[in-house]
C-alpha cells in the first residue's frame, strides 16, 4: 500500500503533463511504516537523460541518483522509489522497466493520454523479479 501526499501527487502529474509527449522521471521520498505501508512526502523531479527516443524511454543520470540519496539523508527520509510517465500507454510496467528495476523501490507509473492524465499505478518488484501492483491510497486529512 502506498499513500501519496496530495501536493506530491500534483507535482508528479504536472511533470508528466508538461513533459508530454516525452517521458518524465523523478524520485519519491518518505517513510515506510512497520506494516510496509509507504507514505510519499516529497519528490525530486529530474531530467530524462535518455539519449534517443525520450517518448518511449527514460534514464536517470548517476549524478542525479546520488543527489537523490543525499536529499533523503538531508531530510531524514527514505528514498522509496522512482516515478515515470508512459505517454499514450497504460500505467503498466514494460519489459524495459522490469529488466532495469531495482528491488525495494516503488515504481510509480503515470499514464498520460494526449496530454491528460489517465491513471497512476504503482509497482514493486517481488523476489522473482516480477512486478506486483501496490495499491495507491488517496491521502486523507484527519
Amino acid at each position, binding site marked *: 500500500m502506498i499513500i501519496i501526499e496530495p501536493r506530491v501527487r500534483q507535482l508528479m502529474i504536472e511533470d508528466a503533463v508538461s513533459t508530454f509527449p516525452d*517521458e518524465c*522521471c523523478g524520485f519519491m521520498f518518505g517513510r515506510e511504516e512497520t506494516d510496509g505501508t509507504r507514505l510519499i512526502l516529497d519528490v525530486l523531479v529530474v531530467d530524462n537523460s*535518455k539519449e534517443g527516443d525520450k*517518448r*518511449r*524511454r*527514460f*534514464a*536517470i543520470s*548517476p549524478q542525479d*541518483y*546520488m543527489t537523490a*540519496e543525499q536529499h*533523503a539523508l538531508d531530510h531524514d527520509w*527514505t*528514498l*522509496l522509489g*522512482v516515478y*515515470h510517465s*508512459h*505517454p*499514450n*500507454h*497504460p500505467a*503498466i*510496467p*514494460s*519489459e*524495459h*522497466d522490469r*529488466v*532495469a*528495476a*531495482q*528491488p*525495494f*523501490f516503488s*515504481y510509480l507509473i503515470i*499514464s498520460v*493520454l*494526449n496530454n491528460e492524465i*489517465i*491513471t497512476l499505478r504503482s509497482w514493486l518488484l517481488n523476489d522473482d523479479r516480477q512486478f506486483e501492483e501496490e495499491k495507491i491510497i488517496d491521502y486523507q486529512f484527519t
Partner: protein
Amino acid sequence: MATVIIPTPLRKFTNNTARLEVRAGTIQDTVNELTQNFPDLKKHLLDEGGSIRSYVNIFVGNNDIRDLQQENTAVKEDTVISIVPAIAGGAPDQLFTKQELARYNRHIIIPGFGMEAQEKLKKAKVLVIGSGGLGSPVLLYLAAAGVGTLGIVDFDVVDDSNLQRQVLFGIDEIGKPKVEAARRRLAALNPHIKLNIYNTHINSQNALDIVKDYDVVADGTDNFPTRYLVNDAAVLLGKPNIYASIFQFEGQVSVFNYTDSKGTTGPNYRDLYPTPPPPGLVPSCAEGGVLGVLPGIIGSLQALEVIKVITGVGETLSGRFYIFDALNFESRTFNIKRREDNPVNGKNPTITALIDYEQFCGMRAVEEKALKEITAKELYDWQVRGEKFQLIDVREPHEYDIVNIGGELIPLAAVADNAGRIDPEKKVVIHCKMGGRSAKAIRELEEKFGFTNLYNLKGGILSYIDEVQPELTKY
C-alpha cells in the same frame, strides 16, 4: 578503511546499513569483500559471469570506474565508493497511432477499461460466422470498437429481403456477395483494422482451418448443423464461442467454451442442447420470420460479450444462458453446467474430429448442385436465331424501372407464389442483377416444383449490358 555507500534499494541485503567499511585495494577486492559478507548482494551486483552488472554503476569519488581503471581502480584508505543503480525504463513500443488514440478515446477514458483493454482489442482476432441479422451489428460494433482482426464467413449474396434487418448492407449491394459488401462497409467505418473474408459455406472440411487462426468465434448462423459444427470446431481448438440466436420475437445469448483466468472451462452448446431438434420443428428466419430490430438487440449483446471475453472486463455469460422476449420485454438468465456425457469434451469424448452435421441434424446435405447456366452472348444468340424461350426477371420493381431487357418481372420473394407463370416445357432463362438471386430462384423452383428447364443468366443483367447492349443504363 575505505567507505562504501550502499544505495537504498540494496540496503535490505546489508542489514539496512548505508555505509560499510572495506579494506583498501582495488574495486574488485571491494566487490569480493562485499559479496562475501553479504551473499544476497551478489545477484544484484554481479551477472551470471561474475562481472559487474550493466545496470550497476560504481563511482569512486565523483568518477565512474568505467572512466578509470574499471575493476582495477585503486581503493585507498580515504576513498568513498558509491554503488549507483542505473534507473531506466520506458513504455512498451507504441501500438497505436495518433489517429487510433483519438478514435478510441471514449473507450480509453473509461475507468476499468482504459488503454489496457483497448490494446487487447487491437491484438484480438475474432471470427464472425454469418454476416446476416446477427452478424451485422456484431461486425459493425466490433469493427468500430477496434478489434484488430475480423474474419467474416458467409456464402450468401445480399437480397432485398435481408435489408429489413441486416443493417450492414444497402440497396447498392443487392446481388453482391455479403462478405464483400461487409468488407467495404467495415473498411469505410474503421481503416485501422484488418478484415479477412471467406466467401464460402463453412463445413467439416474447412472449419478447423478457418477457425484456427482466430482467438474468439462469434456464431451468428441461422441453422442447427452449422451451429453444432461451429461449436465442435471451437471446442476442439480450445476457442471461446460467443453464441446468439433469434427467432421471431425471442433471442438467446451465451458464452461457450470460455476458459477463465483460473483455467476452468465453461459449458458449450452441446451441454445446453445435447441433441438437435427434429428437422423442421424450428424454422429458420427465412421460413418463420423475425422482427428486424431483434437481431440488432441480440447481436449487440453478442458483440458486448465478445468484447468482455477479449478484455477480461466484467463477468461474461459463461455458464449462463440469457433469453430475451421482445413481446413482453422479459429477460431471463439460466445457469448451465458442463455435462459428463458431452461427446466432445465430456468424460469419454466420442467426437474427436468434425463429423457430418447435416446427417447429425437429420437433414439432407445441402448439395451445391450445378445450375444450368447461359452466358449473355449465348442468350443473345438465342434471341437472334429466334429460339423459343421465356425470360424471367427476379429483381425488384424499382430495379426493373431503371433498366430491363424485356423479361417478365417476378421478384425473388414472389417466385414460389407465381410458379404457375413459369413455362414447364420450353427453356426458361432467369436473371437478376448479377446472378445471385436468380440462382436462388432456380433452386427454389427446382426443389419445390421440380422444374428442369431453367437457365441462370451468368452475371445477370449487368453482364448482358456489358456484352450485348452497352447503351443501356447500368446501376
